[in-house]
């Protein structure tokens, strides 16, 4: 595991990093809504503008941001190609049997590409600037209203944070067991599919056993300290809204209002 940097979180301090995770989650939801509500390039331009400012403020290197986009490159290319050929429009540039390239089709698929890129960039900005712990804290706090209908919010958050905490540990463990079996001549790299699957068994079984053992130990340790979850627990890190969050809120509200206004007045609607 030491050779794999886990997750997306990019650990620096910045304006965006220090915002309240709850606000960032809400902002993301508002932002995604705005992207879907936008009916024109002007609307997307508003979103893109705010997003670019956010990226600049976050001190996450541009290369990292592009890497997030690279992950969905295939889907972007695939959908845009489909749209270019199948979108029916009036100004036809080229056509063959049921395929045709139209002016409208080109514009629409460009619109879709922008939309997808914006969606992915803004969601990965959340994970780049918010550590997994903050994220679960934020989700727990946002889900608090569900406690009224007896939904076990705290337990859910606890499960999430334990799972997140254990991912690097288990990755570490996998690496260790893999190395131990390699030292005994195990071969994970060559052979047919059946052979390769069989080669995983000597790693999988010890890993499973160790996961169970760790789970049991953690359960015992929590019992030994009388952990009972819920109500009376206080938090080590209390989430607090600050002036940064006011700015974030205004930006989010601004984006949504702007997009809605453009939509209502039909400015540049495709």
């Amino acid at each position: 595991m030491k050779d794999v940097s886990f997750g997306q979180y990019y650990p620096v301090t910045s304006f965006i990093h220090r915002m309240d995770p709850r606000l960032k989650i809400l902002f993301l939801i508002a932002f995604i809504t705005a992207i879907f509500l936008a009916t024109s390039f002007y609307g997307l331009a508003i979103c893109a503008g705010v997003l670019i400012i956010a990226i600049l403020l976050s001190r996450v290197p541009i290369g990292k941001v592009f890497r997030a986009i690279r992950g969905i490159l295939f889907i972007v290319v695939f959908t845009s190609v489909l749209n270019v050929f199948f979108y029916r429009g009036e100004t036809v540039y080229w056509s063959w049997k049921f395929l045709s390239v139209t002016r409208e089709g080109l514009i629409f698929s460009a619109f879709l590409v922008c939309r997808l890129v914006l969606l992915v960039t803004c969601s990965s900005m959340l994970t780049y600037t918010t550590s997994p712990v903050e994220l679960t804290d934020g989700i727990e706090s946002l889900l608090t209203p569900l406690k009224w209908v007896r939904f076990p919010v705290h337990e859910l958050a606890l499960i999430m944070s334990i799972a997140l905490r254990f991912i690097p540990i288990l990755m570490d463990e996998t690496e260790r067991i893999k190395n131990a079996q390699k030292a005994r001549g195990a071969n994970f790299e060559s052979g047919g599919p059946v052979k390769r699957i069989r080669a995983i068994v000597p790693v999988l079984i010890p890993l499973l056993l160790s996961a169970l053992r760790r789970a049991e130990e953690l359960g015992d340790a929590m019992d030994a300290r009388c952990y009972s979850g819920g109500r009376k627990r206080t938090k080590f890190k209390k989430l607090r809204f600050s002036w940064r969050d006011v700015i974030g809120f205004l930006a989010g509200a601004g984006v949504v209002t702007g997009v809605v206004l453009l939509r209502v007045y039909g400015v540049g609607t495709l």
Partner: protein
Amino acid sequence: MRIVAEHLSYTYNAATLFATTALKDVSLTVEEGEFFGIIGHTGSGKSTFVQHLNGLIRVPSSMKRYKKKKSKKNPPLPQTVLQVGEFDLTDKKTNFRELRRHVGLVFQYPEYQLFAESVKEDVAFGFKNFAEKKPTDGEVAEAVRAALEVVGLDYNEVAGKSPFELSGGQKRRVAIAGVIVTRPEVLVLDEPAAGLDPVGKREIMELLHKLHREWCKTVVIVSHDMDEISENCTRAAVFAEGSVKYVLPPRELFRKRDELRALGLDIPLTARLLEKLEQAGVSVDCDFTAEDFIAKISALRGDRA
């Protein structure tokens, strides 16, 4: 097989924000036939070093690229050497599988890598993996029997059992058997006695001496138990913050009480007792093994009485 390392460095997650240097310019030679100890704190690089010895961690090829870049700002780094017997571990073309057959590596808590349905199958795993052609059942059984017997387990009693039925100490013996079954010339063990009670610890160390005499010419152990080192090793290397501070026989090493303490390391019980005696004005020359210490002290008392 002689182990030679020169100017060996290693960085985890190189060129990222999470980069951590584990080894800095390590130079170290282990002669054939030694019972060598490696001492150091957690994070001192000792585990990283031993994983180099059978190619689980490779010498990064970037080391070679550095050499080509000759400028006044970056003087060329001294050449990295890592050799185990005839195997050149800085060379990508080295047959690392063959190397692993000759250098057995027992990880910390090796009982956690047991996986097979029976002890026999588990011990046979390495043997089958390294065999040049598929061994017959008879050959496998014979190799497993020999390996189990040398680690002090009764083949007839345990071979058919599930490894998970055994006691902790037995499991560890099975795991060690699973490594030595290919008769490696060099046996490297990371904290072989960790987590055992004092009796279990002594038994494991006795087992290692037996292996050293009968099976593996060279034994390298990683430990932070100074008594283990002073009792057993011919020489020991002290790792701190990724570099080697001392390579000395225990007899000389543990005279450096203050230096070791400055590195945050312990000293053996015998060394601590000798310190007290010195403070009381009695000077005893001893090689820091319990046996020698007791002999010297009783001789001293005999003289006085």
